[in-house]
């Protein structure tokens, strides 16, 4: 063991002594490993986030939205789903234990005693928190009675509550929604951001009847609906049936596109993976290229170094180093440098991923896996590209090496 530690120490001395070589190799390896680290973290982050979203969206949930894909593309969200549709669906699907209409109005001025806030007003039935698995942590949900009475009541997201009420409890207080005085009956728990990146905690939930009549001047149409099924394993089949029923209700002839869209947890995962995917591919190419470049930088600098150290190699051979000892020494130096590069690269990756998250809401997640992959790759570069120069060193003829 003492021999191995001596070899380690001597390699370390060499790594320290040939500073320029060390720095160049280290930096180039670090850049590659940083990129790879980000990819691994981003991939893991995407999966983790997708998993979280599916869990909070509800794996048994389906969302139906008004408007075709085409209409969405040009920014028009024409409402096509009616309350009658929702009632018909409720009747037709006995396994749908929740069928909740959903409609909303964006950017509504809400105020309380001079505090103003731009909120999103969501209209829902009384099952909102159950439909979204989103608990009311203070006060309570509004009731079916409130729906029937067009009551001016609402439950509030955390962010709105903070902005308007600070530390006070909003429950029981009246806020102005446009010109409508609305009594807050409950507060929702913190929810964070949607898959698209917007805050979910800036909203106020009110009875859909109130929102339609008093804020939208609307009697039939809503933006969408949310369903939850008890027969989880059949969600795909239910989606097909739902589609057929809605096409029938909307009298869409065969060959015409749907005037609605249906989202399942799978679609959300797909969306997120696609969002992350392009970036992963881009960084992946950059990472692999920079690792290869790093490898060539290392191989070249080590070849130069072998030339510079011919005498050293000769001395070592003279005092009894075998070819494989010399080979091991140069490989050890290479691996030592690339390992350091790997560690630096990992840290660099963590920092830049944090920046990326900060700038672009990019989901990243660091685990031992990202670190292990980075480390193994750095060893692969060290051994793979260090081997040729190390062989050259090992195959020098001792007397010639010593006489130079």
């Amino acid at each position, binding site marked *: 063991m003492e021999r191995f530690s*001596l070899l380690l120490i*001597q390699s370390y001395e060499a790594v320290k*002594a040939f500073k320029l070589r060390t720095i160049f190799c280290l930096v180039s390896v670090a850049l590659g490993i940083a990129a790879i680290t980000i990819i691994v973290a981003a991939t893991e982050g995407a999966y983790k986030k997708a998993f979280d979203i599916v869990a909070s969206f509800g794996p048994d949930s389906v969302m139906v939205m008004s408007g075709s894909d085409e209409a969405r593309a040009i920014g028009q969200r024409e409402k096509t789903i009616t309350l009658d549709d929702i009632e018909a669906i409720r009747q037709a699907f006995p396994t749908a234990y929740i069928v909740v209409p959903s409609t909303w109005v964006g950017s509504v001025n809400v105020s309380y005693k001079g505090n103003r806030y731009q909120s999103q007003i969501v209209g829902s039935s009384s099952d909102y928190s159950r439909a979204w698995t989103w608990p009311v942590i203070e006060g309570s949900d509004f009731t079916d009675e409130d729906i029937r009475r067009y009551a001016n009541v609402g439950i509030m997201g955390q962010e709105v509550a903070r902005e308007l009420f600070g530390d006070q409890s909003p429950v029981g207080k009246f806020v102005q929604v446009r010109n409508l005085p609305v009594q807050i009956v409950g507060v929702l728990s913190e929810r964070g951001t949607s898959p698209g990146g917007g805050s979910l905690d800036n909203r106020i939930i009110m009875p859909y009847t109130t929102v339609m009549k008093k804020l939208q001047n609307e009697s039939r149409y809503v933006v969408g609906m949310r369903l939850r099924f008890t027969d989880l394993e059949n969600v795909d089949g239910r989606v097909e049936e739902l589609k057929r029923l809605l096409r029938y209700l909307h009298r869409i002839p065969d060959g015409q596109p749907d005037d609605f869209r249906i989202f399942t947890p799978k679609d959300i995962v797909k969306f997120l993976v696609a969002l992350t995917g392009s970036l992963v591919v881009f960084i992946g190419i950059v990472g692999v290229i920079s690792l290869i470049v790093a490898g060539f930088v290392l191989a070249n600098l080590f070849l130069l170094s072998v030339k510079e150290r011919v005498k050293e190699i000769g001395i070592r051979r003279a005092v*009894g180093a075998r070819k494989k000892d010399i080979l091991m020494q140069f490989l050890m130096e290479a691996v030592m440098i690339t390992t350091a590069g790997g560690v630096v690269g990992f840290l660099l990756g963590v920092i830049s991923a944090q920046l990326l998250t900060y700038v672009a809401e990019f989901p990243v997640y660091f685990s031992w896996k990202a670190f292990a992959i980075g480390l193994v790759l750095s060893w692969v570069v060290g051994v793979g590209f260090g081997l040729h120069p190390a062989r050259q060193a090992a195959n020098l003829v001792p007397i010639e090496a010593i006489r130079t």
Partner: protein
Amino acid sequence: MAAPVCIMENITKSFHVGDQDLQVLKGVNLTIEQGEFTAIMGTSGSGKSTLMNLMGCLDVPTSGRFILAGRDVMQLNDDELSELRNEHIGFVFQSFYLLPYATVLENVLVPTLYRDKKKDRVRDRAAELLKLVGLEERMKFRPTQLSGGEQQRVAICRALINDPELLLADEPTGQLDSRTAEEIMNVLTRTNERGKTVVVITHDADIAAYARRIIQIRDGIISE
């Protein structure tokens, strides 16, 4: 009486120069007994460097019989030659050949890196050797911080760390002034007096005078 450290019988060594063979050693017969202090003298081109390379097992003869430390050198492969150098031969070179980035202590320990038969307390032994040549205070120094004479003393410690049968010094004082040269030769003499077989290769008669046996080499043939 123990077996001789080195037996050379009718050794030749040829090099290919262009398309003809150049014979540098033309049948050398030489036996070196244990505990001898021998000087091999010759001018440049006499073949003394070639002889030194052969004796140090850095190169193998073209023909002849060569036994070193009881091994038939002609039969050994590269790894076995390395092992032989490591365990049985200590080298001292004209320009010291220390590793510039390693400390004095680390330099002395280099041969132990390649030793298969494990020896305990190599560090203690290195410190002991350095103390014998008066460098115990300089163990953490780098070679560039030492004078030429000090560097050569470190090199001698390195040559002795694995306790070899043969200490081979190639012009050990070639780069030193006469006073330092005398110091180094005294170190070699004391090493010999402690029982080590020493061979010095030199062109300098004053240096050769330290040895008890002087061998002349001229045109690839030796004479005493």
